């Protein structure tokens, strides 16, 4: 795998650099094996490898926060009305992350205390999500918030407290990341934290863009920028296809 090779090469390079320029405090460098994720016509999710190195001390705990662009989301609640389940309540989240994965080498709560998680803005409760209506009722707020997390987790878009960061010889680390097929295009932010005894000692942030490319992107742009022509095109295409089908299978 070329990704694995590049991971090793870069990691070695990083280590050498750190030996060459020793620093007093701990530093951390992280990167991904791809610069860009392309949503092409055959896109079905993408596996990425996050890797990096820590210098000036042993890597004790690494936390990775992978966050996609913020989007407005509607969360709807069904209730039974005359025997039928229908949406009766809606709350709009104005700035929910479309993708939000947090992973570390061991259970997050063991690495960082709750207070520290709040201070470092880690976790869905601590990133200042705005809702369409103020949720004064604590019980209701908790129910809706956990429903949002549950629904996003089911779609593979949110995932918290996964222990899939491996630390190698106290200096290198790596973690596999999976972007599912239903991700939203945009700029993705990857924050990597080095934590020691509940204290943040080093941090690095890298970005990766997810963009539609190729024929699929062209069709999407055509449909959105020239929608009336797209509509006529779709009809002409259908008329031609229908005629073709009739001609091909015409009974003699």
């Amino acid at each position, binding site marked *: 795998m070329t990704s694995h090779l590049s991971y090793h090469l870069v990691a070695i390079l990083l280590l050498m650099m750190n030996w060459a320029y020793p620093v007093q405090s701990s530093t951390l460098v992280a990167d991904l094996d791809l610069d860009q994720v392309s949503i092409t016509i055959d896109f*079905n999710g993408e596996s990425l490898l996050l890797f990096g190195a820590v210098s000036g001390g042993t890597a004790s705990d690494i936390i990775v926060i992978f966050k996609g662009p913020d989007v407005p989301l509607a969360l709807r609640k069904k209730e039974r009305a005359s025997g039928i389940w229908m949406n009766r309540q809606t709350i709009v989240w104005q700035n929910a992350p479309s993708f939000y994965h947090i992973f570390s080498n061991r259970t997050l709560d063991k690495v960082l205390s709750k207070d520290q998680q709040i201070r470092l803005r880690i976790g869905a409760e601590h990133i200042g999500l705005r809702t369409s209506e103020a949720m004064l009722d604590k019980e209701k707020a908790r129910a809706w918030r956990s429903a949002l997390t549950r629904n996003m987790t089911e779609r593979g878009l949110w995932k918290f407290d996964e222990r899939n960061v491996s630390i190698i010889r106290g200096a290198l680390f790596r973690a596999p990341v999976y972007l599912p097929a*239903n991700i939203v295009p945009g700029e993705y932010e990857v924050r990597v934290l080095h934590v020691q005894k509940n204290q943040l000692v080093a941090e690095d942030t890298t970005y990766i863009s997810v963009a539609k490319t190729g024929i699929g992107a062209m069709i*999407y742009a055509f449909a959105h920028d020239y929608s009336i022509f797209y509509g006529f095109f*779709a009809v002409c295409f259908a008329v031609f296809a229908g005629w073709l*089908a009739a001609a091909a299978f015409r009974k003699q």
Partner: protein
Amino acid sequence: MYIYLPIAEISMHIAVVIGLGGGVGFLSGMFGVGGGFLMTPLLIFLGVPSAVAVSTEANQIVASSVSGVLAHWRRGNVDFKMGGVLLAGGLVGSSIGVLLFSILRDIGQIDLVIRLSYVVFLGITGILMLMESVRAILRTRQPGAKRGKLHQHNWLHGLPLKVRFRKSKLYISALLPFFLAAFVGVLSAIMGVGGGFILVPAMIYLLGMPTYTVIGTSLFQIIFVTANITILQSVQTQTVDFVLAGLLLVGAVIGAQFGARVGALLRGEQLRGLLALIVLAVCMKLFFDLVITPEDVFSVEFLK
């Protein structure tokens, strides 16, 4: 091999898409129906957003109706005058339907209305068809039964604006086919169907058209109604995925050929009875989805 559908914005296995087209195409070839009433719910079950499912299915029905109408046209079984009145009503109805669709989508009730419409209209047609075919099967077992009149006149035929439809041998109010087609047009836009399952029986029993002109004429008007929906949805919601429509069509064209061969082996009333059972099965599935307590009462939707 997976394909990322550019408008639906989901990834599906290409074999699933073509297989779905083929399966529905087989049934539509076998029973001589459009198949939209099967395709749209199946697309929604497979995770295609309901707006994309409805708009894309309209686009696909344009193709299947064009392909179907050509044979009827060659045989001279299209009543263009009646078709013109129907399509005027259909255009008005489907435009209202597209508007209603986007309002319902904004308030988060579109899935409910789609499901309710399916339950009600598939339920009614399914039961009527089943009763009719059972009667027909019983009648063939007792020979010598009398045939009914060609068609019966009622007060609806006496409305103003009477027009002579030569090909269909009718002299009836133009308002009747106009409003019938307008009503079906609304349903067509909301349910993602051609509406043949309502239009065809209504043209036979309500308008009293002779059976041989009904299929060709209804296909003729369905082309324009679904083309109208395709264009309006393209402009208003950008939810027409012609890649998805094209792939479904490939399967449907091939499936319909095999379906037609199997259908030729069965008698008309047996076919109608079978079709009624399929219609009722879809109706029941959607009905249970509405009444059974959902696994999660919450659902999330991306707003754009």
